[in-house]
Each structure stands twice: as structure tokens, then as C-alpha cells.
């Protein structure tokens, strides 16, 4: 299992992560990032791409 965390002090709601994993990251109607906090190990590549794509480097992933 992969645990996803977002540093909300850093996040600027640029939405770049949403392009990499649309079902995990999304901007709500107010443009604020919402995300699913856990995902299956099979999603690692997409989640790493999302973390890499974050302009503020606010996403971290922990595998357990």
C-alpha cells in the first residue's frame, strides 16, 4: 500500500498532479486540491510521476 501525503502549506493548487493520476488527485469547484490518501502498490509509477510533477514538491509517498 502507498500512503500519499500533501504538504498543504506548500501546495499552491497548480493541479499538475491531477494530470498524472486523475482518480487520485483533483481540484474541487473552488480550485483546491483534494486527494485520496492511499493507493495500491500497482499505482507507484503514476504516483511518482505526480510527485515529480508538483511545482512545489509538496507530495510525498510512503510505501508499507
Amino acid at each position, binding site marked *: 500500500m502507498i500512503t500519499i501525503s500533501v504538504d498543504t502549506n506548500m501546495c*499552491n*493548487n497548480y*493541479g499538475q498532479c491531477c*494530470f498524472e493520476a486523475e482518480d487520485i488527485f483533483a*481540484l474541487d469547484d473552488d*480550485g483546491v486540491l483534494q486527494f485520496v490518501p492511499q493507493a495500491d502498490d500497482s499505482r507507484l509509477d503514476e504516483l511518482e510521476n505526480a510527485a*515529480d*510533477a508538483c*511545482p512545489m*514538491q509538496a507530495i510525498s509517498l510512503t510505501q508499507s
Partner: protein
Amino acid sequence: MSEPVVVVGAGLSALRTAESLRKNGYNGPIRVIGEEKHLPYNRPPLSKQALSGGIEPDELAFPHRASISDVEWTLGVEVVSSDFRSRTLTTDDGATISFGALVIASGIRPRRLPIPGPQDGRVLLRTIEDAHHLRNRLSAGVRLVILGSGFIGCEVAATARGLGCEVDIVSLDSEPMIRPLGADLGAGMREHHEQHGVRFHLGRTITEFTGKDQVSGALLDDGTHLEADLVLEAVGSVANTEWLEENDLDLSNGVLTDGYLSVVDSPVPAVAVGDVARHPNALFPGGTMRIEHWNMPTDMGKRAGSTLASLIAGEPVAGKPFDSLPSFWSDQYDQNLQSFGIPGAATGYEIVEGSYRGDCIVEYHDSSGVIGVIGVNRTAELLPYRKKLLARHP
């Protein structure tokens, strides 16, 4: 291959290429040589949060994956020449370094203009040190003249106004950020800046800095004299390719690569990544591009690491040619710009939502169709436009 992969340059593209080499099965030694003293760090905040105090410059380092924990980082050392036939590099401390394969990630530096007058008080913005220096000098009442009206100039203008500085922008262009944005959106952004008190001197350049030892003003080509405590020069960039000369490579506007980011005409396995690379893009066929957008080092590093791992193993290069959609964002006051594609290469544009003076979406096209989209405060709404650009793929 016993000699290491040597990566010249220690920015984001170096980091992502090293990670990708490991991910694609290269387990040999990797050595990164960087001119800056720092491990790879995130540059965009240098003109924004790191200047206004929201983020300390030292907090900008990228995290490293475990796969690259054995990479050797040689920092504060500049590679000054290279010989591809003997597979050696020479550094500014006189050392000769052998390589088995090469990653060219040497980036860009700010362009300097030969303007007469005192040097003290002229500043650039590319590195953490530059940001430290600028941050220490920006405070309420400081008179800042910015030469250049591109993104760095405009972002620093917005940040400096937030800090209470007086700001004048001098630019030969007719509107700020005109090349990527076009004249109408450029004019809309200019009005935001003017509402925040920035003064523009467009179609003008600085012919001389005035003052004795320290810059106290800038003389424009129409005779206007602007008083200044500090001048930021932000007039574009130069690719760092001098160290590659005499290897018969195409170094016109960066290092030319093929569609897999392998260096054209290189006798050794070599890739080029990031701001220094000029490359084809399968999404926009027919030419080459050198793009300084933030997402490119990451996307190029991933493709180039795979390419180089194959070249080193003596195997055919696998996968798709490089086809990343260029993307940038910019924050100025409460305006958030996001761009996808290559709007700067467009022959025309049309507004599809909103108004140029407020929030909007603008599409950019050439004879092949839509090649770019820019949204102002429209992040969530840009998703279908981005998908339309990705659908260009044959």
C-alpha cells in the same frame, strides 16, 4: 563499461536522468559534476516565495530516491572542456575525468548585455545565491529597475511591489511576456502590473548605468533617466555549451539531439537533457525546440535515462520518441497563469473564455492546428484543453 556515466550539471534534469538510468537497469557508477555548490534544487520559487520570505532558499532541495543513493556528487566544480574521442573532461580545478557515457545537463545562464557604467548594483536571478543577494536588498522604498519583461522580470516585479519597492520595467518588447502570451494577453497582464504600481518603459533599452562605484540610475535610449538602487537584468538566457566545442557537435542554440534525446553525431553514448538540449518533439513534428519550462527536465530525464541505459547496454533504444507536452505556470499578484504546449511558436490565437483583462483561456495555433493554451486563474478548466493538445499525437 567500467568508466562511469558522468552527468555534467547538477540541476533537476541531472537528478531525473540519474533516477531513470537506475530505473532502466543501469547499475554502474554515476558521477554528477555541478558548477553550483548545491545538490539539485527547485528554482521557480527563487523569483517568488523565496524572495518574499515564504520559503527559505535552503529548503528548496529536491528529495532523492533510494535508487540513486550511491551517485557521487562533485559540486562547485565546472567542466571547462571535453574530448569525446578520448572520453575525457577537464574541470576548472585542473582535473581530468574519464567517462564511459555522458549526460549533458549543463543548463543555461542569464544573458548579459554590455552596458557601460558601474557594475555594483547590477544583479541576476538564476541561483540560490542570486536569490539570497536580491532578497537581502529588496525592502520598502528600494528603487528597483528591471531590464527585461519576460517571466522572471515580471514575477520579480510582482514580488518586489509586494515588498514595497518602487519598480520600473524597461523592455524592447511592445508588451510584457509577449512571445509566449501574444500582444493581447500581454497587454492584459501589463494592466495588472500597472494597477499594482509598476511603471513600464516599453520599446526602450538601457544605454548606460549612472553612478560612481554603485549604480544610482539607468539612462534609457530616449533620454529618460530612472533613479535606481538596484538593477535586475532578466533578458533571456544562453545555453552552457562552450565546454562541448571541438567535438563536431551541433551547438547552435543548445545541443542538438535526436527524438530519443541522444546527442546527434556523438561518437560516444551521450544524451542531452533540460534547458541545454535542442530536440524534436513527436507532438509537434517538423522542427526542434529548446524549452526552458519547468516540466521539461523531469520528462526529458525520464526519456534520456532509458535511452542512455540502452546505448550503454548496446541494445536498440526502446519505447516512444520524446513527446512531452511543455508546461509552465507563473504567479503574479493574484493572477495564476498556466500554459500547455508551445504558444510562443504560434502564428495566431483566440480567446475562448473570459477576457484578456481578467480571468481567461486563450488558444494558440499555427497551420497544424492548436499548439498551445494558456489559462489565467482557470486551472481546473484547462484539463480538456490540455487533453486536446495531447490528442495531437499521431
